[in-house]
């Protein structure tokens, strides 16, 4: 397929996933912080901005840190490329650029999602019924993903779409773990029930976790689950495995591309890791490494598959100078 099309599909997948993950985290943060004292709430919102690597950008333009300003920043702010509405817009633009490749159903589900956000009174939603809005975003994103799976041929185009969303999700889950567990690895050894539920919910993982670990909600268990569960579709390991599977199909047979090597090494590492050892060591450094590898893999995918002409071709005209 065309390199550019592959790139658009890849980013469609990434942006839809980003919008969904952001909505998830906003939802849980918002409801987790209801009734908390102002200082606690402020701390909670700043944590969320850190997870999303948007803390500095937010601080540059905002003084007040509360539910309203942060939610607004993360949902509608057009200057924030990570905000939900701009993400959906970019997902739509990317899909529109490959309109002839995505199924009509998939296009309509993305386009209708975008149109729905356009006609909604988002300010009112954020004020009065954020739960409904976040639920809507999550459901629409799931609908997009589901429609893609059900209506697109599972060919290279679909693989790039999936690859994009898997790499995005792997990174988001790493970020979530990295920031959420900061206070507890700095001395406290008991993970608060509330906090753990919070993290699991952000990853839509609480039900699946309880089934896997009905008895003990320990720090170790929660980290292990989100990092290494081989079956839970939002765990880092699961995302890397899926990305690897798709990449293997995209590569020429018998060839191990650089992106595949990076992902495969990291996947193997996670597969055989011991969470106790990780916690005894520097878990944050480890999560950073994982994120770096995911980013590196995305860059290598771009180099291998998406390379097209530079933005401009320079004109030169030779002048007679006699």
């Amino acid at each position, binding site marked *: 397929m065309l390199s*550019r099309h592959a790139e658009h599909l890849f980013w469609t997948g990434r942006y839809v996933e980003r919008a969904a993950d952001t909505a998830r985290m906003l939802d849980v943060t918002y409801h987790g912080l209801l009734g908390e004292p102002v200082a606690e709430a402020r701390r909670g919102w700043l944590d969320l901005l850190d997870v999303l690597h948007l803390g500095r950008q937010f601080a540059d333009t905002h003084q007040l840190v509360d539910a309203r300003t942060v939610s607004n920043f993360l949902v509608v702010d057009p200057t924030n490329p990570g905000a939900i509405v701009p993400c959906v817009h970019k997902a739509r633009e990317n899909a529109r650029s490959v309109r002839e490749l995505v199924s009509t159903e998939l296009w309509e589900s993305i386009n209708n999602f975008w149109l729905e956000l356009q006609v909604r009174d988002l300010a009112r939603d954020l004020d009065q019924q954020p739960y409904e809005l976040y639920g809507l975003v999550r459901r629409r994103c799931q609908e997009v993903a589901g429609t893609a799976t059900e209506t697109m041929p599972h060919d290279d185009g679909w693989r790039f779409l999936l690859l994009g969303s898997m790499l995005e999700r792997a990174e988001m889950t790493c970020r979530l773990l990295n920031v959420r567990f900061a206070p507890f690895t700095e001395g406290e050894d008991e993970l608060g029930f509330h906090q753990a539920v919070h993290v699991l919910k952000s990853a839509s993982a609480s039900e699946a976790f309880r089934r896997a670990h009905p008895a003990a909600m320990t720090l170790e268990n929660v980290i292990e689950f989100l990092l290494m569960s081989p079956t839970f579709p939002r765990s880092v390991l699961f995302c890397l495995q899926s990305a690897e599977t798709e990449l293997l199909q995209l590569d020429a047979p018998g060839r191990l591309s650089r992106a595949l090597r990076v992902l495969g090494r990291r996947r193997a590492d996670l597969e055989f890791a011991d969470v106790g050892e990780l916690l005894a060591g520097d878990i944050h450094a480890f999560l950073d490494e994982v994120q770096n590898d995911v980013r590196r893999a995305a860059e290598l995918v771009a180099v291998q598959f998406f390379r097209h002409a530079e933005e401009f071709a320079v004109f030169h005209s030779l002048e007679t100078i006699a």
Partner: protein
Amino acid sequence: MTTDLFDGYAPDDFFDEVFTEDASVRPHYEDLVARLRSFTPTELARRERLRDAAFRSAGITFTVYGEDEGVERTFPMDLLPRIIPAAEWSEIEVGLIQRVTALNRFLDDLYVGERAAVRDGIVPAWLLSSSDGFRREAFGVPVPRGARCLVAGIDLVRDAEGTYRVLEDNVRNPSGISYVLENRAAMTRVLPNLFGSLRVRPVDDYGITLLDALRHVAPAAAGDPTVVLLTPGVHNSAYFEHAFLARQMGVELVEGRDLVVDEHVVYMRTTRGLQRVDVIYRRVDDAFLDPVVFRRDSMLGVPGLLAAARAGNVTLANAVGNGVADDKAVYAYVPDLIRYYLGEEPILPNCTTYLRWDDDQRKAVLDRLDQLVVKPVAESGGYGLCIGPAATDAELAKVAEQIEANPRNYIAQEVVSLSRHPTLVDDHLEGRHVDLRPFVLTGEKTTVIPGGLTRVALRRGSLVVNSSQGGGSKDTWVLRDDDAKVDDGDEVT
């Protein structure tokens, strides 16, 4: 039946497509009118909403320029179809094939031939080389089988007598075919029972016909040619159509940056390496095709593309430089070109046209500006049009000034009192002016898609039907030859 949709409908002094002068329904519309009468206005309004929802959700939009950032709009389709009986259509069809055949001959002769029409004084050399659409850079660039106008859109209007006349030729990059196909799809979804017993000729094989034509003009060396559609990109006003056609044909929709030229061969960049391209259905204007040859600032084109075409390694459709035939001053010579190249009398007449570089003609025209239509020769889409009877004194004065300053750039035509067709306005029908853009494809032979795009001026009294100027469209039904509903009683006597 409650209110009759046709109550109060008056054809006035225009040629009406549905009603004769004595207000009786033309035979080929009888079935449709009867069926329409069974609908209440409320029911029709509901169908309209269905249609709008279908269009918006499918993203059938075009971009209007001149407004902020280019606004996406849906192109309104009127629910009342236009019907053309078989006998009438076959006459149009022959006329269109004749005209496009002559245009192909003329353009091929001009760019790679001996320029016979110029040599023999049929059309002045200076008129051609002074045309905005003339491309010196395309001199000597071959097109297999001379199919330079692979896709042509010939705009027809019907005058007060009901005679079809050619209003203008569009042989650069005519757009609108996607609306023809989508309109039909929408009609069958929204008002399926309207078709009744009428046997309407299908249009949905357009994609296949177009692909066939494109494959037919591939360089001889290409065994199983790879065809692509080159678009300026998602921000182009006709992007929807580009994507639509690529899908219909099952070919890649590429942008300039997806292509690269190596040793005068064109390739596309894919995730599995370079893949050779043989035919490019390009919807990028000449001036943006190749920055080595044309506009240096163009990021839409492909460096080296024209040399590749010249070397015969790739075919560009439509051919570069066709704009000279779209020139509205050259248009005035097309009947002569038909006689010259084909030795036949033109079947479809032109509209009466005055050229302005002749001093006497110009003066006569300037005196009658308020009765004529003045058009810039190089524009399309209704931009820059001045309709004398509707213009203010200030507008007329400005046009007169422009003509004096640059007579070559304008033509004047007698106002054609375009035919009208009943059109749904709120809850009743009113007559609105219509034209017709049939699409003509040239591959192995020249063929016409049945019907085409009927454009309708939605504003009362307006003669401008262009989508960019607030026009809408109608599904256009060409009836089958063997249809019992068809007879020759259509002529106004």
